[in-house]
């Protein structure tokens, strides 16, 4: 019982081969699309390397890049094969390669599917990397005189302005770290000394935020210092004030941004996977119809194509037996006492006439 058997006339076969040739070239383009999507994701992650802690998140863009390149190569070969399949003489060149090609491509489409699913699963790792990375960056915000960290202030300021966010989870994160360097603190002043003494580690903490946290949509000039002190500013209540600073935390803002990118990429990769699968189905039909044509002998006649020669269960069983016998190739069959030349007659009954079986080894 063949799976999804279809009859193919000569014109249908030729048309199938031509269509598949074009579709394979389209697949080469989609392979390039995959490659560029992986490259884009890699660039986007590298752009903010200073804000991400060391985590293994580079494997996803790397996988997309390699899958894209392999897809280009496989579909290029597929296009070449389909182009030659119109002519039965040229088909003979590829006859032996076609089945391994189809099997390899089938397993390769699994890689594409895995790549698509990984895009959706990256979120957890990314969140961890961003939390740690942002915390470190905020801690080192004031170190603009330390080589290697001197651009962290600018990076964090431009991030907060661009993504309209403040701090790690919210603007209060800035209250817990010293973001003004000691170089700009007048330690002769009483107020400064008081603040430094007010906590164990001797840090200058204040209820203020950098200017990049200011919300451009606020109707009021930005209040950056003494945020929790209602009496320091006229007509101000920090508990109800929502428009003064950016309310979103930068971790959430960046996470949303990257999740959006990866969901779009994941969707595109799924669509490409479905397309590759359909092209593979077409190539399988072409292969089986041409092989059946070879068996029939007449190049102009009709032939049948199918996905699997027998049903799923039988194919699985026969493949399983092949794999088992591959493992057993060293063992000798003990039934015939190890000698393959002995002819053992069958003892089966063949009905009323009881015609004996023909001996296989008959002298001519």
């Amino acid at each position, binding site marked *: 019982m063949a799976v999804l058997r279809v009859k193919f006339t000569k014109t249908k076969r030729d048309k199938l081969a031509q269509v598949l040739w074009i579709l394979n070239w389209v697949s080469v383009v989609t392979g390039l699309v995959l490659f560029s999507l992986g490259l884009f994701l890699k660039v986007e992650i590298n752009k903010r390397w200073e804000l991400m802690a060391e985590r293994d998140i580079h494997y996803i863009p790397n996988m997309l890049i390699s899958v894209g390149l392999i897809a280009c190569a496989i579909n290029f070969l597929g296009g070449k094969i389909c182009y030659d399949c119109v002519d039965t003489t040229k088909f003979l060149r590829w006859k032996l390669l076609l089945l391994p090609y189809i099997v390899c491509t089938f397993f390769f489409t699994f890689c594409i599917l895995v790549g698509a699913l990984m895009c959706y699963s990256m979120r957890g790792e990314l969140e961890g990397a961003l939390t740690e990375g942002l915390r470190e960056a905020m801690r080192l915000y004031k170190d*603009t*005189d330390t080589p290697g960290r*001197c651009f962290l*202030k*600018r990076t964090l*300021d*431009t991030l907060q*302005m661009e993504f309209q966010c403040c701090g790690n989870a919210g603007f209060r994160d800035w209250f817990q770290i010293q*973001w*003004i*360097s000691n*170089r*700009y*603190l*007048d330690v002769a002043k009483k107020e400064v000394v008081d603040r430094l003494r007010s906590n164990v580690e001797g840090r200058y903490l204040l209820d203020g935020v*950098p*200017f*990049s946290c*200011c919300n*451009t*949509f606020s*109707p*009021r*000039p*930005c209040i*950056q210092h003494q945020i929790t002190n209602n009496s320091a*500013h*006229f*007509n101000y209540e920090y508990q109800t004030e929502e428009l003064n600073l950016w309310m979103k935390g930068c971790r959430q803002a960046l996470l949303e941004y990257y999740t959006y990118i990866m969901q779009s990429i994941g969707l595109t990769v799924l669509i490409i996977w479905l397309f590759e699968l359909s092209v593979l189905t077409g190539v399988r039909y072409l292969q089986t119809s041409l092989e059946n044509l070879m068996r029939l002998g007449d190049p102009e006649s009709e032939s049948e194509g199918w996905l699997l020669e027998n049903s799923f269960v039988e194919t699985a069983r026969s493949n399983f037996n092949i794999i088992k016998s591959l493992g057993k190739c060293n063992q000798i069959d003990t039934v015939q006492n190890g000698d393959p030349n002995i002819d053992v007659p069958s003892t089966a009954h063949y009905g009323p006439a009881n015609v004996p079986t023909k001996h296989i080894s008959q002298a001519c």
Partner: protein
Amino acid sequence: MALLKMKFPLQRRVRLAQGLWLLSWVAVMCGAFTFCLGIYLKTELLRRAEVMDNSEIHVVPNILILVGIASIGTNMFAGRVCQDSLDPARFPRWKPLLLPWMAVALLLCALLIASVVLSYCLQGSLEESLKVGLRNGIRFYRDTDVPGRCFQKETIDRLQMELRCCGNNNHRDWFEVQWISNRYLDFTSKEVKDRVRSNVDGRYLLDGVPFSCCNPSSPRPCLQQHLLDNKAHFNYEHQSEELNLYNRGCRKALVDYYMGLMNTIGPGILSVISMQLSVMVSLRYLQTAMEGAEALENPEDESEGYILEKGIYETVAEAKATTLSFFKFGTVEAETTDAEKAAPESG
């Protein structure tokens, strides 16, 4: 003496027609490109329309858009003519339209050159428009509760952050304007009352700037208030401090941005002009070669193609004579009828 005469055997005529067909489709692409450039320039100008006082500069993208659309149609027509030129039955119907086509194509090239010239000449007008627009923007910065002006604060803040500039000419423009609204000033406080009384108009002026003037590249957290008071901040000298705020004025930043944009567009427009001119010249050669071939006994023989049938001066003189005779047409007729009437009378 014909101008730039060339011999055209049959094979060359065919090649010219085919090459010109291809060239005219490339010119259609160039027309679409011009149109897109015009749209892009217009959107960029409209983006900052709130800080511009007048829209004189919009004439440049408008010309580009019109010329782009017109040249798409014109060059498609040229392509059609080329397709029909090798068929002696269909070519004659296009012949009377070719001279007007030349005139239209010449007009399009002239308009493109005019747009390039205008983009340089209108720089002064753009600067004036920005000066007035920015001054108004800074003046109305605090009016976030006045309908029609409530977005000025956001516009100016975003402009200063995106273009990395502060104020109109520099950051001191903010010292001359009250940019904090009275709604947020505590008039019972002595400091506020002193400041308001210290100037004639009763405005709350201070040596401070909004947060959007802050430079993220500064190594120090931004100093926004008491900018002229060296003692207000530790280790600070306002005369030598350069990194704290943006040094550029927004007017200069915007003018530089738009001039840079037009300088980039300029070479593209010049190449479109040269493409259009080459299509015109090739079509003229094709027209004259085809007309010459028609006049021959054997249409497949060699014919001559030229740009002008006679030399430049002779063509100009002829054109002058034709236009003058057109105007004198009425008077010459009257003279001949008078002479005819007089002749039978005398005869």
